């Protein structure tokens, strides 16, 4: 790999191939990007994934239905509860189960909290990507609060295994409401603080405004979902296009961008955190005591059949395709991972931008490699 290879005999320059990853501080895990550079400009980019392919889908076929939840925890390891929810909803759809109200309220509150914690991670790591080192510490401070609340409810900081088929594992502890109130109040303040720290910073605006503007048509064609799709200006959210759970009982907003650039993607996530907080506040008011687990047999045996369920995870449209052959184990589980589809579009987004922008664009996609590679 001599550099002189890059200069041919006539003295003119040729493009340089540069290998970002699998170990690179800003690839958010083990993702490899081969960039073809003309000076600082990217001519072509080739993403390579699979450095975290653990064969989860195949392993799901060997576990019983209730054990699969643990594997789903580890798919999207930033928003664990949202992935658990998608799987449990798929099994419940096959079983045609009615889930008690209180279970749905607990699920909704925890999933929205997890959405906030996921976006807080994005906020911090995005700060690192554009070169600011402080936001990540503020983002993780809030994550820590949410994680300790999760720990009180579910018993684990990250891999909860709390949302079960037919409801949730157990009712919330008695001090939950009080702690939740405290956390919501703190989060409200913290979101404003984070907003002030980064959003209007001159250098941040210069780095993110008008970078990688994605059109609606391209975004849809690539199967891009979630905040990135909404940043292009399409009114779309699985919670409104295919409402599930009890989301129809809440009055909340969907932030929609207009340009589809990196700043819009960033700020949509900031606004989503505020909307999630409003959902949580409404849910606290509406929640009433009651059962948290549907009446069902201990050993789950859904009837023969198949179903597809879409949910809105923090990264976009998380779908689960479940095929049952009537036995104790699922016959086939296919995860339609939002990051997987979002990452496809990166080749298109990276054409003709600067190397430094590649980092910013990749950061704005907010991928989780566990979900991309499965």
């Amino acid at each position: 790999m001599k550099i002189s290879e890059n200069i041919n005999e006539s003295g003119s320059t040729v493009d340089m191939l540069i290998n970002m990853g699998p170990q690179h501080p800003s690839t958010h895990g083990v993702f490899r990007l081969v960039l073809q550079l003309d000076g600082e400009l990217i001519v072509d980019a080739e993403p390579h994934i699979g450095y975290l392919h653990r064969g989860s889908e195949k392993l799901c076929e060997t576990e019983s239905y209730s054990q699969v939840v643990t594997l789903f925890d580890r798919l999207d390891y930033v928003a664990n509860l949202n992935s658990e929810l998608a799987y449990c909803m798929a099994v419940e759809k096959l079983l045609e189960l009615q889930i008690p109200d209180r279970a749905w309220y607990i699920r909704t509150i925890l999933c929205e909290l997890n959405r906030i914690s996921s976006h807080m991670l994005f906020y911090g790591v995005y700060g690192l990507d554009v070169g600011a080192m402080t936001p990540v510490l503020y983002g993780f401070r809030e994550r820590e609060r949410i994680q300790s609340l999760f720990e009180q409810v579910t018993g684990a900081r990250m891999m909860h295994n709390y949302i079960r088929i037919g409801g949730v594992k157990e009712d919330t502890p008695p001090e939950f409401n009080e702690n939740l109130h405290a956390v919501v109040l703190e989060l409200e303040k913290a979101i404003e603080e984070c907003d002030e720290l980064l959003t209007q910073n001159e250098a941040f605006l210069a780095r993110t405004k008008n970078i990688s503007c994605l059109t609606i048509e391209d975004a849809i064609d690539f199967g891009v979902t979630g905040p990135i799709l909404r940043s292009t200006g399409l009114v779309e959210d699985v919670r409104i296009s295919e409402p599930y759970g009890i989301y129809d009982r809440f009055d909340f907003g969907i932030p929609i961008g207009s340009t589809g650039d990196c700043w819009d993607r960033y700020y949509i996530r900031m606004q989503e955190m505020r909307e999630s907080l409003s959902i949580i506040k409404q849910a606290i008011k509406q929640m009433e005591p009651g059962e948290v687990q549907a009446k069902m047999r201990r050993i789950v045996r859904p009837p023969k059949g198949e179903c597809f369920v879409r949910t809105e995870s923090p990264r976009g449209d998380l779908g689960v395709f479940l095929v049952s052959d009537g036995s104790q184990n699922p016959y086939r589980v296919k995860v339609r991972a939002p990051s997987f589809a979002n990452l496809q579009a990166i080749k298109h987004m990276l054409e003709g931008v600067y190397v430094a922008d590649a980092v910013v664009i990749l950061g704005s996609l907010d991928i989780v490699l566990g979900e991309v590679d499965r």
Partner: protein
Amino acid sequence: MTWEAIGWYVIGAFGLFIFLSITVMFLTWIERKFLARIQQRMGPMRVGPHGTLQPIADVIKLITKEDILPSWTDKPIYWLAPLAIFIPAIAIWVTIPFSETLVLQNLDLGLLYIAAISVLSVLGLVMAGWGSANKYSMLGGLRAVGQLISYEIPFIMAILGVAILSQSLSLIDIVNDQSAIANIIVQPLGFLIFLAAGLAELGRTPFDIHHAESEVVGGPFVEYSGAHWAIIQLAEYVNTFAIAALIAILFLGGWSWPSMPFTGITNDFLSLVWFLIKIYAVILLIFWIRGTFPRLRIDQLMSFGWKVLVPVSFINIVFTAIIRFYNLHWSILTVISLISIGIIFYLIYKTPQKSRKKDSIRIISAKDAVNNPPKNYGDINVR
């Protein structure tokens, strides 16, 4: 020159080297503690009281670590690069005074010497970038060349502004000239230009483009390990200290402003302390900027340098020269500087291609959107 004088120079140079090494080691500690303070952490705590021995541990560890020579490097260039970075960083201190007498050799053309030496460090960076034969190093080295050469111009122009005011290139004369009023009050514009250009010369946030961790993973130094890397890091902090000292001398009045009401040895000692306080204040400002600012992109950095800093530094010189030529009162220059600063900030704030408002994000009520699917893409037919 007598042998005695040479002996004193050798002792002085050695003393300066020791002083700089120790100061710089503790600068790393100060940086870590200060950034930790900004980030609601504690920073190093366990190694020595409040982590004060942390830099010593770091240095011993780095020196005793294996020094890897990758097989594909251009060996002479690779080994010489740390020296080419380190020697200019130290050489600049020959003429930087700590007080009227505490200086290795006060040069009449001190500022010229400093401007000349500070360009040399570019050579070391590009040698490191090329010699490592690593593509990230190469990118970082080339970025460094572009960045440092461009920012030399506003750097020297800001120095010239001060030189015109004081009618001297000797640093001691410049400090003594400020005993009544410091240059930062006369020339706030010049101070800002020098601060920005100085940060770019140091490669510190928001101009840390050539060793950006999240893009080029440490830039020219990505392949260096052990003692060589320690030398490079030492040079970086020596440079930081030098720029802070230059700012204190050129704009904050060094040891002479505000003048001390003491005489004799007390005065000497207190003015030295006062000078060091000023230097550390500037350093903390640099660290503070590091803790809060994102990084610019290379083309934005260049256009900021050439389209903003260079013209503005010319304006600064022209007005300074006019004031000096017609012997007008210094406060006129202050007013002109402040007005130009205001205009620049307004222009940057109003950059047409960036809409600053947050209203590019609209919030759609979910209740309405459930029942109204968009007819066409981009339709927003609700709230």
